[in-house]
């Protein structure tokens, strides 16, 4: 239980076409992440699946049952909102129990389910508190608890970690992944943070202007981006993209190479560069370079590398790791 299928789903707000047409199959138990810049339609697609927006055309199937015309509450999904959307005047217990209460479940059953969810999420000591007495991370867990108790066919997360500070975000990320392992439930997760997408997803859906650019596992997207957009969006620091005569040498309009695929060293194909600035992270050093042939380049070197700004450096591009793109931004597949 827990497959979701979108079939030529479109969404129009008055004259503006937000989603021109999306086809997507989400497998059972999969952790799928929608990622893209703001305004790319990722949240809209999630809300279409949830039933909080009506589709303009197309069909949504949950467990192969068409649900596009059904109200949100009938789709058997649970959603975790960006603002958590906890009911402020209800205790944690009341918040978690609300969905079950609305479903008219017996009291003892509700009590047992709430207790179990609270235990899973380490909320047992906070059951009688009000949301405003909780920290951000705890509120987030209550929101997740509210979703868990309903035993939904799939969980929908709408940028759930964007209101948390960096340290807590990493911790909650792990907790959500742990939860996915425990529940083995289908989860659809929306984020604009490609690090979240890379670390959490079984498969990533990269969206751009309401269209799906590419669907694949994090490593597929990383190693074989099928468009310039995906190449630029996935990976940090960003992939170096070079166009012009240097790209034409490779028979492409634009070539891309990731910072970690540029090595420091001498050789026949070495490129001489001036160091503009170096960022020392301890584990890595990001060196920003200016070159005559290729323009600005970023190089990721492992460990601590001495790189004084203004001095020159010789680097070699790994030819096997160069991505080639045509004038439309589509990848040119190696012959």
């Amino acid at each position: 239980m827990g497959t979701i299928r979108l079939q030529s789903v479109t969404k129009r707000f008055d004259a503006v076409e937000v989603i021109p047409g999306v086809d997507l199959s989400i497998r059972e138990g999969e952790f799928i992440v929608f990622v893209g810049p703001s305004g790319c339609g990722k949240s809209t697609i999630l809300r279409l699946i949830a039933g909080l927006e009506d589709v303009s055309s197309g069909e949504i199937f949950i467990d192969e049952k068409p649900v596009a015309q059904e109200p949100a509450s009938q789709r058997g999904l649970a959603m975790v909102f960006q603002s958590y959307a906890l009911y402020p005047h209800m205790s944690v217990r009341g918040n978690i129990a609300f969905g079950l209460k609305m479903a008219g479940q017996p009291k003892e059953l509700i009590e047992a389910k709430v207790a179990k969810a609270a235990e899973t999420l380490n909320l047992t000591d906070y059951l009688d508190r009000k949301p405003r007495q909780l920290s951000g991370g705890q509120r987030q867990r209550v929101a997740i608890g509210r979703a868990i108790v309903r035993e939904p066919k799939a969980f929908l997360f709408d940028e759930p970690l964007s209101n948390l500070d960096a340290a807590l975000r990493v911790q909650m990320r792990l907790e959500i992944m742990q939860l996915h392992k425990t529940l083995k439930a289908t989860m659809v997760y929306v984020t604009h943070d490609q690090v979240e997408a890379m670390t959490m997803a079984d498969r990533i859906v990269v969206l751009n202007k309401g269209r799906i650019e590419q669907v694949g596992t994090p490593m597929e997207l990383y190693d074989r981006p099928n468009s310039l957009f995906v190449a630029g969006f996935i990976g940090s620091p960003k992939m170096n993209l070079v166009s012009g005569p240097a790209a034409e040498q490779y028979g492409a309009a634009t070539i891309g190479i990731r910072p970690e695929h540029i090595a420091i060293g001498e050789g026949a194909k070495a490129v001489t560069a001036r160091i503009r600035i170096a960022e020392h992270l301890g584990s890595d050093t990001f060196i920003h370079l200016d070159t005559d042939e290729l323009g600005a380049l970023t190089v990721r070197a492992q460990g601590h590398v001495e790189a004084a700004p203004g001095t020159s450096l010789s680097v070699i591009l790994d030819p096997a790791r160069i991505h080639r793109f045509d004038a439309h931004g589509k990848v040119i597949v190696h012959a």
Partner: protein
Amino acid sequence: MATHHAIRLGRLATAPSVLVLFMWMIVPLAMTVWFSLLRYNLLDAENAYFAGLDNYIYFVTDPAFSDAIKNTLLLVGTVLAVSVIFGIALALLLDQAILGRSIVRLLIITPFFVMPTVSALVWKNMMMHPVSGVIAYLFKILGLAPIDWFADAPRSAIAIMVSWQWLPFATLIFLTSVQSLDEEQKEAAEMDGASPFAYFFYIVLPHLARPITVVILIETIFLLNVFAEIYVTGSGGMAGNMPYLVYFQGLLNFDVGGASAGGIIAVILANIVAVFLMRMIGKTLES
């Protein structure tokens, strides 16, 4: 936060205005207390003398007194109930995307801007007049006998008029509160399968607890003092409340002592109501 010096300076700086406000309050109050202890009638003003608590005893034992208290509380209670219940209903309606919403919102506030005296005259002569009134006309259309409001149901008539005046205030406060309700909460309730009724009772109403408290507190203060509507429509005989009774004693019976005693009793009554209100709803404001 502040140093002792700053605190002392602050007290010193506010002292003059506090003093003026205190005098503003205490002089009339002290004079009223003093007059309330005198037998002081304007028809016989030279023979004023100290009468102790006699005025209070006369005022309280007057059969009009219990009627006045009953009318006061009845009026306050009815108008509060009407403005809270219908205020919430109207606020929810006005929150919907209806055609010409901004104009409707503006129109709905207008009764609040009409002077009580004017509103009373309009209601008496245009709306509730048993022969030429709009309500009588509607009754006749429906085949009912028109009501002579100020003769047969003066309390209801006053309550309707005052409700009409105060409903916009409540609506406005509730509307701003309804609009501040988080959209994602609404969607969360939708996902949780809450019916419109459940959504109203479990999400909207608790969200409105604080504005309801504010409306009850503020309206009570003003509703205890309703006078113009009763005076202008001439329904003080049957629907007279405490302010009207004080007026009656002072300016119709020329009994300054009795009116002062009534005034002090009204102050005490208002304080009792205030204490009850604070107890009842103070908790909502704190949390």
